[in-house]
């Protein structure tokens, strides 16, 4: 455990720690582009310059291991001068098309220039021309002129995704990142290259030009795409959610997330959601306010007696399961609670990095709750019950992320046998229009609109906080359970749109204010 002094502060680090890691762990600022904690050391951007006492020249922090008694300084004039010029070398061939660059606002070059900029451009020659708007694959677009050749993305494809699509071709200042024609950047993790790109060279086709980043607020949550439960950051404003990025989590996802998880913000947005509840009696559908619909449905539920069944998918939080299961088993006195598992065949598959076959974030949580309430049922019981008429009313907590529920239509046909179906669902699904008899569709809150816990495949509790409100009138599963059981509930003021600014301790906002005043001004909901 060597001890060293960095900028006058004594620090003890593990053996073999490099200086930049030591500084990273202790929240000390150091300029860098090519170094990324999840990748190997390249040492090419030459920006993480430090001065070590006793060494005549400035060294790079990312490839220098801390030794006992080392005295390190990255605030001296010598270091600043070196970084200033290092940054200027990065910028002499950079096109400075910040106005149309998606990275503007969160760009490494912009950030470092504020601190180390030369503010005295001396480059009077023509810039090197390279390819612009290169289509690298189905998800990523490259702008070679903006690229600073930090090689992060190349190292990502060789070390993490191991797909080897990217390479740096040619040499000197003619070097360009690229793929080979026949082999585009097409893997399940390709968008991580966009995240780790410190400049706007790699941009996501999905997010490209849709918003300027300073119009977006961000908040952390847990991905509900599969049972891995990656920690993610969602970016949103009053128009809805725009993108999802991974957040470092040592135990679960490291620095990465898969491309499928990044698509999960889409079904949350208003255009894909049920805004009003629908009720079908006889032939046509009528639109009702969600709470009122739940109260209406309560009559059917409470009247059902022992012919009531509850079907749960693994997409809700532990707290919601606890509530709904306890209400149904205690107040409504039914033990007919079934687990709807969507993909039995692939449920245990795993791609070796992050993606798991179980596409429900909380299967474990659901099973644990059912176990806790001593409920053990089989799907075949439900089927036979429906066939025999032992089940007349079914409450279905439908899948939030229904992309992986290919059998919804089939299930709709199955539940139609019951006569009364109360379907709780967040995102629109055309299959639900086929519900017949006495049916309700009640809009639910999506995972970004509630606090809760998922229990992932490894049994880790993944707690998350509410991010934003998209459909304010929709219900959580707990609220719906209360209302269906005929209880009265108070809607908590937190879910009120007007006091949005007070919640989340404003941590995000303050950070943004430091970073960019416009976010504070315009990003407020």
């Amino acid at each position, binding site marked *: 455990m060597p001890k060293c002094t960095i900028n006058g502060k004594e620090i003890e680090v593990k053996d073999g720690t490099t200086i930049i890691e030591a500084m990273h762990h202790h929240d000390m600022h150091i300029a860098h582009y090519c170094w990324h904690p999840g990748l190997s050391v390249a*040492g*090419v951007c030459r920006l993480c310059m430090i001065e070590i006492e006793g060494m005549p020249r400035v060294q790079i922090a990312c490839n220098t291991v801390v030794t006992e008694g080392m005295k390190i300084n990255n605030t001296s004039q010598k270091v600043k001068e070196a970084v200033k010029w*290092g940054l200027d070398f*990065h910028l002499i061939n950079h096109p400075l098309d910040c106005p149309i660059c998606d990275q503007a606002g969160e760009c490494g070059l912009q950030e470092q220039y504020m601190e180390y900029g030369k503010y005295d451009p001396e480059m009077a020659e023509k810039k090197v021309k390279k390819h612009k708007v290169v289509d690298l694959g189905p998800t990523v677009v490259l702008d070679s002129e903006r690229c600073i050749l930090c090689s992060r993305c190349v190292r990502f494809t060789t070390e993490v995704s191991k797909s080897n699509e990217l390479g740096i071709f040619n040499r*000197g200042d003619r*070097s360009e990142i690229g793929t080979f024609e026949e082999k585009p950047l097409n893997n399940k993790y390709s968008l991580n290259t966009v995240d780790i790109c410190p400049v706007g060279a790699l941009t996501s086709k999905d997010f490209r030009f849709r918003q300027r980043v300073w119009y977006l607020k961000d908040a952390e949550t847990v991905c509900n795409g599969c049972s891995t439960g990656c920690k993610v950051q969602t970016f949103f404003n009053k128009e809805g959610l725009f993108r999802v990025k991974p957040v470092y989590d040592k135990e679960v996802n490291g620095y990465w997330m898969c491309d499928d998880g990044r698509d999960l913000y889409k079904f949350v947005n208003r255009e894909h959601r049920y805004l009003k509840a629908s009720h079908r009696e006889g032939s046509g559908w009528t639109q009702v306010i969600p709470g009122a619909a739940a109260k209406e449905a309560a009559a059917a539920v409470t009247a059902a007696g022992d012919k009531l069944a509850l079907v749960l998918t693994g997409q809700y939080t532990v707290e919601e399961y606890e509530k709904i299961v306890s209400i149904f088993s205690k107040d409504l006195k039914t033990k007919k609670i079934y687990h709807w598992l969507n993909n039995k065949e692939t449920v245990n598959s795993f791609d070796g990095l992050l993606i798991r076959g179980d596409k429900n974030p909380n299967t474990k949580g659901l099973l644990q709750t059912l176990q806790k309430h001593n409920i053990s049922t089989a799907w075949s019981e439900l089927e036979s019950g429906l066939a025999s008429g032992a089940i007349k009313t079914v409450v279905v907590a439908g899948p939030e992320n229904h992309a992986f529920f290919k059998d919804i239509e089939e299930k709709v046909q199955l539940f139609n046998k019951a006569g009364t179906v109360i379907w709780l669902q967040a995102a629109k699904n055309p299959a639900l229009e086929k519900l017949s008899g006495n049916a309700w569709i009640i809009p639910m809150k999506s995972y970004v609109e509630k606090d809760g816990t998922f229990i992932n495949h490894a049994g880790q509790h993944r707690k998350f906080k509410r991010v934003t409100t998209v459909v304010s009138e929709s219900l959580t599963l707990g609220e719906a359970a209360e209302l269906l059981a005929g209880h009265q509930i108070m809607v908590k003021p937190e879910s009120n749109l007007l006091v949005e600014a007070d919640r989340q301790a404003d941590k995000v906002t303050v950070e943004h204010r430091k970073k960019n005043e416009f976010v504070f001004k315009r990003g407020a909901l």
Partner: protein
Amino acid sequence: MEMKLLTEHYHKDEFRRLDGYKKFGGYEVLKKALKMQPQQIIDEVKASGLRGRGGAGFPTGTKWGFLPKNNEPRYLLCNADEGEPGTYKDRLMMERAPHQLIEGMIIAGHATCSKKGYIYIRGEYNYIILIVEHALEEAYKAGLLGKNILGSGIDFDLDVYAGAGAYICGEETGMISSLEGKKGQPKLKPPFPAVQGYLRKPTIVNNVETLAAVVPILRDGAPAYKKIGTEKSPGTKLFSLSGNVVRPGNYEVPLGFPMKDLIYKLGGGLRPGRRLKAVIPGGSSAPVITAAEAESATLDYECLAQMGTMLGSGAVIAIDDSQCMVDMLAVLTHFYHHESCGQCTPCREGTGWLNKVVHSIVEGRGRLQDIDLLVKVADNMKGRTICALSDAAALPVLSFVTKFRDEFEFYVREGRSKVKGVSHAQVHH
């Protein structure tokens, strides 16, 4: 005058072949060396004070001593990627005496306990590759390579690897990358090649001349070798004389030899009516010195270091007074711009920047502040990168601009060369 320790028999054609080489005492030293302990050889080389002949001048024995004391497989690489403009000594050595190199490599391989060696030859030397490959074949047939060399129980395999045209592969880690089948980009140090080199195994990289020089050292003994040359730079060295001299060529002289003797006596001086203007003493990466400095310079590591330049690979390029220094600098900046591997930002962008500024001066678009800008940019490229290429690009710029500033200023003001009186824009495309 010339002291032919290595090049004694180079003029004889039979010296290229195994039987001819043996006739002049070839592979006798090997027999002696195989009986010695590896550490003994290292000590002998250390005692001789032999310094790397490739450019950096690092003591060879010390380098060998860096190898970790473990049983990992080791590699001995011979750096024959001779790309430094002005240098052509390795070419001569491999062409005239491939067996000398092979003998040196076997001895060095024994000293460093490596079982496998590679000779990395630049791809352009196509016929040299054939010569060396032929020599290796001969050596294998004679039992000088392979398993159990000459019945000593020592194994050593040697192979040739052809480069494909990249100056940067002359840098030892760049060469290792290239040998691993990657782009020839230098690797971060630490770890140094002696600890983790080729395929992350301990590796020793030496120049052709260094490895060949091991043979006379072991033949005559370290004390005898140390007597040659100066105290701190012992031994002889091949100097590749080129440029505006009457008799350019490779001359083996003891270190400490006066530069003016090399140029005027061995090289036959300049062409009639011409006077010496400047000398680049160690390949294009070495800072240039003026004619006045060249008068008093001696060819050894210390004297040239004192003058702010370096011995480098021993390529002495004489420039006479009919040459325009701005034009010559443009040639050099173009070279470094072309050869920068593109890994580290200061070098990748800096070499391009220097090249553009110098060419804008050559084309008559220069501004006076561009001259200072060249100094500033070069200053900030020095010592900021993984390998020494950015230093190599910066040093000539700094020395040309500071020592011949009047020519640059004249060119900027008048848009034409002070010496030739015309613009050089046409010559550069």
